[in-house]
């Protein structure tokens, strides 16, 4: 789609439009800011050059002591909403203080525009030096030789990749090199509305829950409060239009998988995989504990609006739910027949292969993954820090439920990431949306069997 990030907390068009407008405003303010901030920074820098800087400039060999190259200006492109943009600008400002010779210009776009601009920028040979990369789309860019291999820089500076979450690092690793560092990651968990649970005297979800327990309690919380014969409060809600929000976790919890190990075909046709997707269809159409997706397609997240007691969705929604005034509880996803599983998806910072300032770009990418930047990022409550030290320490105790999210990495699967991801997801999801989730005209197995040849052809051709 269109946007496979439509699930990123912005289901409601209103919010998406606000983000667009706000994003545009921030582009302007960011442009204005970047013209003033470098001069301010360089003024302080020339007044008091740090001694380490002066010492290391004698030896031109790169070291971990800091950036020693010539003055450089690099551009950094990200997608995001106004809060994320403000946060990243604060990180950049802090970077300027420690690296006065590098000026970073931040540009932001909404999700769709971001990729359009990036592709046309690369086609025209004018891409940002550093840009944000979504895990699943990484292979599409890396395989086309537009990303810089950071391995030589990592080796030269003795950078320890072990300080970052392993799965997240691996998502940007290929047999030939390391083409980015993870900046943050998102994990799927179960949110619950404590007030609604208390009102129904229902037990809070915990790590002992399984699918059956979820259905049982969800029934208890699905009610028709105004007596019109239709439920107006649902026990459960999730987004169905992307595998990440819930259904890929259900597939793994049922012992299935998305891709065959060699990545050249899909194993969604197995009973285990189809069974996971079937469970989601049943929650909507058989158990009726989850609203018909069409009901909330236009108005946004049912849980955020206080119309659903539980939601399986991503860590990016924590701040949104809290801001909506929900007494938020966070629990692990209920376990499936084959055990516990969830989905994580990292966002990476990657460097354009043809950047004119690779050393400055590397310095900045490294900084984005540093404890200082990651602690700043953490304040957003939008994503988990990729840095292990920050994740286990400050993050896990930063809000009620953060530890559940951090601990989920132990049993998380990485969101499938392969060349042709968008094409695959669109073909598959168009079918699932139309005939499985929005209307139950087919079982999950029937729908998958229908698109299986097209999916396999697509994967084989990549």
């Amino acid at each position, binding site marked *: 789609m*269109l946007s496979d990030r439509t699930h990123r907390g912005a289901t409601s*068009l209103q919010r998406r439009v606000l983000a667009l407008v706000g994003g545009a405003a921030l582009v302007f303010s960011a442009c204005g800011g970047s013209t003033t901030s470098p001069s301010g920074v360089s003024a302080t820098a020339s007044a008091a050059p740090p001694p380490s800087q002066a010492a290391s400039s004698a030896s031109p060999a790169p070291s971990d002591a800091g950036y020693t190259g010539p003055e450089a200006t690099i551009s950094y492109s990200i997608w995001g909403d106004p809060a994320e943009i403000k946060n990243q600008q604060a990180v950049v400002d802090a970077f300027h203080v420690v690296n006065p010779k590098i000026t970073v210009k931040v540009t932001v776009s909404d999700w769709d525009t971001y990729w359009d601009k990036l592709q046309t920028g690369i086609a025209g040979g004018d891409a940002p030096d550093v840009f944000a990369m979504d895990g699943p789309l990484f292979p599409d860019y890396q395989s086309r030789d537009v990303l810089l291999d950071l391995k030589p820089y990592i080796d030269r500076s003795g950078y320890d990749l072990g300080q970052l979450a392993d799965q997240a690092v691996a998502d940007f690793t290929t047999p030939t090199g390391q083409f980015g560092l993870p900046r943050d990651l998102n994990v799927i968990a179960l949110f619950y509305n404590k007030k609604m649970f208390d009102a129904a005297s229902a037990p809070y979800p915990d790590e002992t829950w399984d699918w059956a327990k979820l259905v049982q309690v969800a029934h208890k919380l699905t009610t028709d409060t105004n007596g019109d014969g239709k439920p107006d409060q649902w026990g459960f809600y999730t987004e169905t239009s992307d595998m990440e929000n819930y259904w890929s976790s259900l597939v793994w919890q049922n012992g299935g998988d998305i891709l065959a190990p060699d990545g050249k075909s899909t194993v969604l046709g197995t009973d285990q995989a189809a069974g996971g997707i079937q469970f989601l269809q049943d929650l909507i159409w058989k158990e009726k504990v989850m609203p018909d997706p069409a009901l909330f397609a*236009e108005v946004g997240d049912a849980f955020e609006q206080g119309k659903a007691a539980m939601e399986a969705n991503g860590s990016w929604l924590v701040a949104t739910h809290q801001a909506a005034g929900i007494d938020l509880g966070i629990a692990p996803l209920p376990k499936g027949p084959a055990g516990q599983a969830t989905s994580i998806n990292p966002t990476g910072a990657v460097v354009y292969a043809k950047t004119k300032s690779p050393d400055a770009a590397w310095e900045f990418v490294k900084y984005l993954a540093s404890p200082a930047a990651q602690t700043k990022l953490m304040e957003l409550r939008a994503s988990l820090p990729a840095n292990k030290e920050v994740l286990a320490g400050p993050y896990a105790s930063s809000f009620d439920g953060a530890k559940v999210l951090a601990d989920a990495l132990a049993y998380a699967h990485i969101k499938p990431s392969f060349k042709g991801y968008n094409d695959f997801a669109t073909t598959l999801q168009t079918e699932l949306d139309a005939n499985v989730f929005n209307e139950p005209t087919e079982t999950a197995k029937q729908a998958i069997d229908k698109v299986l040849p097209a999916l396999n052809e697509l994967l084989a051709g990549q």
Partner: protein
Amino acid sequence: MTALGSRRGGFPGRRGGSRGGGPLGGEGRWALLFLAPTLVGLAVLSAGPVLATLAISLTKWDLLQAPQLVALANFVQLASDDRFLKALRNTAFYTVVSVPLGMLISLFLALALNQTIRGIAWIRTAYFLPVVTSTIAIALVWQWIYSPDSGLLNQFIGIFGIAPQKWLSNATLAMPAIVAMSVWQGLGTNIIIFLAGLQAIPTDLLDAASVDGAGRWARFRNVVLPLLTPSIFFTGILSLIGSFQVFDQVFVLSRPRPTEATITVVYFIYENGFKFFKMGYATAASWILFIIVAVLTAIYFRSQNRWVHYQ
């Protein structure tokens, strides 16, 4: 829009030019000078890229690496691409329904608005407002109208005991719902053109018809309508071309992605070019769209001798 009438009479500067100078020839040169910014812009910013897409359509190109020549393979593949054929069918449906419907309603409204009553300027402005409002804002309002839960439309049909419908996610209703919004959104443009056409009709012709005993309908049928045909022709061509390029309404209303019932050709082009890394394939589709539009436009232009009356 009286300019349309004079256009038929020929470009005066042109005639003068063929005589080789003189005051009219000078006028022609001035005209060219004033047109130059647009012409240069078109040549550099439109004609260049348009020709480039013709070359790109013969390649496999992901935007990131060098294109590979594949001759006509993209066109061959399009012919058997289900999603493309569905997009073509949906676009055809959209055009066939929205163009006549939009023109009929706006003609009717233009006749109604062609009055000299108090506040008419405000009423005309109101009809034109959707044209200058962003599609995003309009789509927000229409999403609320179409909302399956508390939508205005479902509340309205509820009065007559009709069950609520999922206007935007139901495969049968989705495209008509998008057409309805687009027609409403586009009314203003057509109305303005029709109004201009109506006001250019000389009142003495209408008076003469009245004296000859023509009633309201007869005057409309035999005087107004024939004199309005240039305006109808003009709005027709604009609507036709515009409707083949329908994109933003679908892009916004069919979130998170258009279904098989709502995907249109331009959305297909966007999706392949910018989401699937198939720019060559996307440009091939855009050339097919261009050829379809060009052929229909040519046929439409040829037809004007038979039904368009210039004063």
